[in-house]
C-alpha cells in the first residue's frame, strides 16, 4: 500500500513539476493524494477489465473511415516533431535510406526491414480521424503494411502477449538517462486490420514532424498510442521491466494504458 502511494506521488510530482509547482499548495496535495491513490487502485482494476473486455468485445470493429473530401488540412504534428538524437539525424540526412525496422523479442525468426522492403509489402490505405488526448481531432490518410503481415512473417511465440514499439525520439533525460518514447498494445489491437506501419501520409512520404520514416496507427485509441519514429517492434510477455513498467511513455506518467476512452 505504501508503495502505491509513493508511486502515485512520483506520478503527480512529475506531472506537476516545473511551472505548476508554485501553484501546488501543500494542503491540496495532502488532501488529493489519498483520493488519487484510491482512484488509481480502482482504475488499475478497471484497466485490467478494459484489457479484457474492450479489446474482446470491440473485437474487429473498425474505426470510422472518411472520404477524401474530409482531408481539409495537413495532419497536425504534436509531441516530438524533430528528434535530435545523433542516430536519427544521421538517418534523416540520408533520407532514411539506411533505416532498418527491427522486429525482435518473443518471435521465432527475428527480422529487420528497410524502408524499401516495407514499401514493397502489401499495404493498406485508410482515411481516419486522429483523436488527441487533449481533445482535438484531425482527419488524414495513412498508408502502410498491416502490422499483422509483419507478425505473420516473424511468427510470434506462444508466450507473446503484447507488442512494444521503441522510438527514436528522446522526450528528455532524467536521472536514469534519456527517456525514449515507447508504446505498447495487446495482440487484438496488434492484429486489427487497421493497425498499420504507416510510411505514407496524405499521398506523400511520412514527413519528419509526423514521425518519419514510420509511425504506427492503432486507430481505435488516442494519439499517444500512435508512436512515431519507430525503430524496433518487440514482442513481450509483460512490459513490467520496460522503463517504468506501465507500457508507454505517457502511461509511465499517469495516463491509462488503454487509450480507447
Amino acid at each position, binding site marked *: 500500500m505504501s508503495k502505491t502511494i509513493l508511486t502515485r506521488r512520483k*506520478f*503527480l510530482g512529475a*506531472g*506537476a513539476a516545473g*511551472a*505548476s509547482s*508554485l*501553484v*501546488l*499548495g501543500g494542503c*491540496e496535495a495532502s488532501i*488529493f493524494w489519498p483520493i*488519487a491513490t484510491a*482512484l*488509481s487502485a*480502482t*482504475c488499475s482494476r478497471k484497466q485490467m477489465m478494459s484489457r479484457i473486455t*474492450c479489446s474482446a*468485445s*470491440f473485437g474487429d*470493429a*473498425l*474505426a*470510422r473511415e*472518411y472520404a477524401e473530401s*474530409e482531408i*481539409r*488540412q*495537413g495532419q*497536425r504534428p504534436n509531441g516530438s516533431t524533430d528528434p535530435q538524437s545523433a542516430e536519427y539525424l544521421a538517418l534523416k540526412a540520408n533520407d532514411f535510406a539506411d533505416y532498418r525496422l527491427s522486429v525482435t523479442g518473443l518471435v521465432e525468426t527475428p527480422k529487420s526491414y528497410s524502408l524499401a522492403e516495407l514499401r514493397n509489402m502489401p499495404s493498406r490505405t485508410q482515411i481516419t*480521424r486522429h*483523436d*488527441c*488526448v*487533449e*481533445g*482535438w*481531432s*484531425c*482527419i488524414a490518410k495513412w498508408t502502410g503494411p498491416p502490422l499483422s503481415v509483419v507478425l505473420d512473417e516473424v511468427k510470434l511465440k506462444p508466450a507473446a502477449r503484447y507488442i512494444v514499439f521503441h522510438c527514436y525520439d528522446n522526450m528528455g533525460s532524467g536521472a536514469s538517462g534519456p527517456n525514449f518514447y515507447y508504446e505498447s498494445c495487446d495482440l487484438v489491437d496488434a492484429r486489427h486490420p487497421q493497425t498499420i506501419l504507416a510510411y505514407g501520409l496524405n499521398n506523400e512520404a511520412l514527413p519528419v514532424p509526423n514521425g518519419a520514416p514510420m509511425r504506427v496507427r492503432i*486507430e*481505435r*485509441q*488516442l494519439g499517444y498510442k500512435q508512436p512515431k519514429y519507430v525503430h524496433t517492434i518487440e514482442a513481450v510477455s509483460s512490459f513490467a521491466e520496460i522503463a517504468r513498467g506501465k507500457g508507454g511513455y*505517457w502511461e509511465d*506518467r*499517469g*495516463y*491509462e494504458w*488503454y487509450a*480507447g*476512452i
Partner: protein
Amino acid sequence: MALSEAHRDSKTARPLVYRQSIWTRATHWIWAISLFFLLLSGLQIFNAHSTLYIGKQSGFGFDNSVLSMGAVRTPQGLEGRTTILGYQFDTTGVFGVSGTSENPQARGFPAALTIPSYRDLATGRVVHFFFAWVLVATLFVWLVASLVNGHLRRDLRPTGRDLAQLPRDVADHARLRFHHTGRYNVLQKLTYCIVFFVLFPLIVLTGLTMSPGMDAAWPWLLDVFGGRQTARTIHFVTMTLLVLFFLVHIIMVFAAGPINELRSMITGWYRTDPETKGDAGS
C-alpha cells in the same frame, strides 16, 4: 403542557409527509458528489485544448471553432480572450488568463475551477472517468427503483392537469410564491424530466462519442451527434445547462425554505402547508 399543545397544534396544522424514498435521497447525494467532481475534472480536461468546434475534426487549416479561450501577449502583459461564435471578449483574470498579476497563467478555466488545480490532464481524466461510471451506475439504479416504486409515474410524470396549471405555476414562481403540498409542481416535474431524460443521456452519450474505442463499436454515435468535435461541443453545452439547473435548484431551495427542503432530501420528511393537508396525504 403548553409546549406539547403547541407542538400538536403545529403538527396538525402543518403535517410532515414522507416525500422522498431512500432511493431518491441516496441517488440524489451520490449525483451531487459525482457532478461536483465531473464538472471540475471536466474543466481540467477542457483546459488541455480550450477550443470547441462543430464537425468531425478540429479546424487548424480552416475555422470551425465556436468557442475558444486563449491568451494574447499585449504591451500590458498577458490578456485572456474568449471568443464565442466570432464575438471576442476580454476575460483576463477569469478565462484564458488567470492567476496573480505577478504570475499570470495562460489557461482556459482558472485554477479554482479545476481538479487538480494545477495542470494535470492524466489525473483529471482518472477522476472524470471514475465519477462518470458512478453517475451512470447511479442513474441505472435510480431508473429501476423509480419504475418499481412508482416515483416516475406518481411524482415526475406531468399530467394533463399539471400542464393546464403551467401558466399559473410560472406566475407563482415569478412572484416567489411557493406551495408546499408535498408534491412536485409542474415546473419541477418538467425540469426534472428534462434533466433525467434529456441532459443526463445527452452528456453520457456525447461523452462516449469522444471515445475512439466506442466510436468503432457504436459508429452511429458519430452520426447522431454530427461528428466527434460536435459531440465535444454538445457535451460542454449540456454541462453549462446542468450548471444552470444547479444554480436555479439551489436558489429555489433557499427561496422555498432550505431547512424543510434539506430535511426532505436527508430524512425523507417534508412539512407541508396547512391548507393543503388533504392533498399532501394523497
